[in-house]
């Protein structure tokens, strides 16, 4: 993640460009951006804008980075979308972010976390020049796009082209349990553990669920150098 956060734009998944474009058209917003975060809320936190559709989206991400607060960071901290249909009314929770965002001409913001349990990769932040809520189907589109963005960023970290997007929606409790076990056994982060399990499944041409079941049943112990 560190490498990705500090990499050139060239190193980022082209899927993110499409995801931001779809966010604009499907959520009917003025612009969208994806910000990647590493260890948000900790002293060695890092964040970096990965994609943005317009200058305002770039400005919003710069602002969040500078003041250290905003809807994207709140979404990752909460593990849930932060939907603000009228920033002028509801923006008091970010005293440093809100005045700057309003000055950029932003009236509404909708942030969706790129997240799976404690694995937080960043957020998909959408903004609108006019106030107003997302419709329920638009909010659902935001959830789906954030899920796809999570997958494509994770695949990029793993150095694999994101050719099988959609696998996240199929994973069940045992994959998360297996991630926890591997994280503890190898002393690695939850994100790293999920990547190890995926890599093992990929290398042995097995479904992720099968590998997870073997780990939970203690029939498979992933090695440190897998």
């Amino acid at each position: 993640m560190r490498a990705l956060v500090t990499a050139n734009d060239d190193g980022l998944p082209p899927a993110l460009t499409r995801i931001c474009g779809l966010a604009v058209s499907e959520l009917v917003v003025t612009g969208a951006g994806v910000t990647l975060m590493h260890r948000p809320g900790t002293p060695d936190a890092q964040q970096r804008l990965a994609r943005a559709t317009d200058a305002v989206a770039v400005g919003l991400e710069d602002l969040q980075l500078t003041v250290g607060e905003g809807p994207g960071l709140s979404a990752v901290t909460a593990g849930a979308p932060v939907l603000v249909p009228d920033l002028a009314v509801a923006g008091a929770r970010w005293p440093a972010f809100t005045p700057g965002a309003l000055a950029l001409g932003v009236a509404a913001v909708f942030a969706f976390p790129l997240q799976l349990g404690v694995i937080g990769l960043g957020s998909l932040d959408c903004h609108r020049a006019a106030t107003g809520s997302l419709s329920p189907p638009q909010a659902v589109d935001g959830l789906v796009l954030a899920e796809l963005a999570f997958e494509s960023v994770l695949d990029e970290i793993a150095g694999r082209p994101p050719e099988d997007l959609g696998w996240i929606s199929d994973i069940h409790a045992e994959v998360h349990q297996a991630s926890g076990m591997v994280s503890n056994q190898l002393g690695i982060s939850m994100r790293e553990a999920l990547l190890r399990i995926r890599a093992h499944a990929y290398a042995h041409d097995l479904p992720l669920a099968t590998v997870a079941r073997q780990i939970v049943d203690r029939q498979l112990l992933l090695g440190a150098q897998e």
Partner: protein
Amino acid sequence: MNHSHEQRLARVFVELADTLIDQFDIIEFLNMLVERCVELLDVAAAGVVLSDQRGGLRMAAASSEQARLVELFAVQADDGPCLDCVRTGLPVSSANLADENARWPRFAVAAREAGFRAAHAVPMRLRQTVIGALNLLNTESDGVDETSVSLGQALADVATIGMLQHRAIDDSAILTRQLQTALNSRVVIEQAKGVLSAHAGVDMQAAFVALRAYSRSNNLRLSDIAREVAEGTADLDAIAAGGQVSPPRQERH
């Protein structure tokens, strides 16, 4: 229903209402709901599944975290009483799961393998929106009795209102946030169960029991302690040891 049963039931409603006041933790709340269902109603097991708002269902709480029961809620993403209940917004029941292979090819088999013979699902519904279902399961093939079903529906109604709290309940943004918070918290709990299971060499059920006991005896939110465990910042030995914080070490004299 006898007098003491009514008193216990009244206490459960007070307890559920009480948890809504502050420090609200949806997963802990739903967990309390399913545990109380098993204590109070004539059912062997209970669980809550929630809509992921993308056409799918995910388990949010189960009266036991034994793998077979958890799996039984997971298969209902494909078929079963909860899926039918969420789709129609109406209660769904089967008094004999042996007859349901055609109706629920995956669920009927998985339920019988787990030892259940009857199932009932009641919707968690607010006006037009169905956010999930409460599933009641029994080991006898004569169904879940009517009193249990109507009490289960009352508990599900309290839980639905509880999840949306006392806010503007027409606001779909609140609904989205609460559902996604609950679903992500559930993933954190699974990740934490895995960490504790590997650390202490216990199964997932024992890992969950230790996690919950620790959160209760130390007055911590279940979601918070699960997050600390999954992020690797919790005292795993203390949690695995039975839920008590070890007392500060005494200086030797």
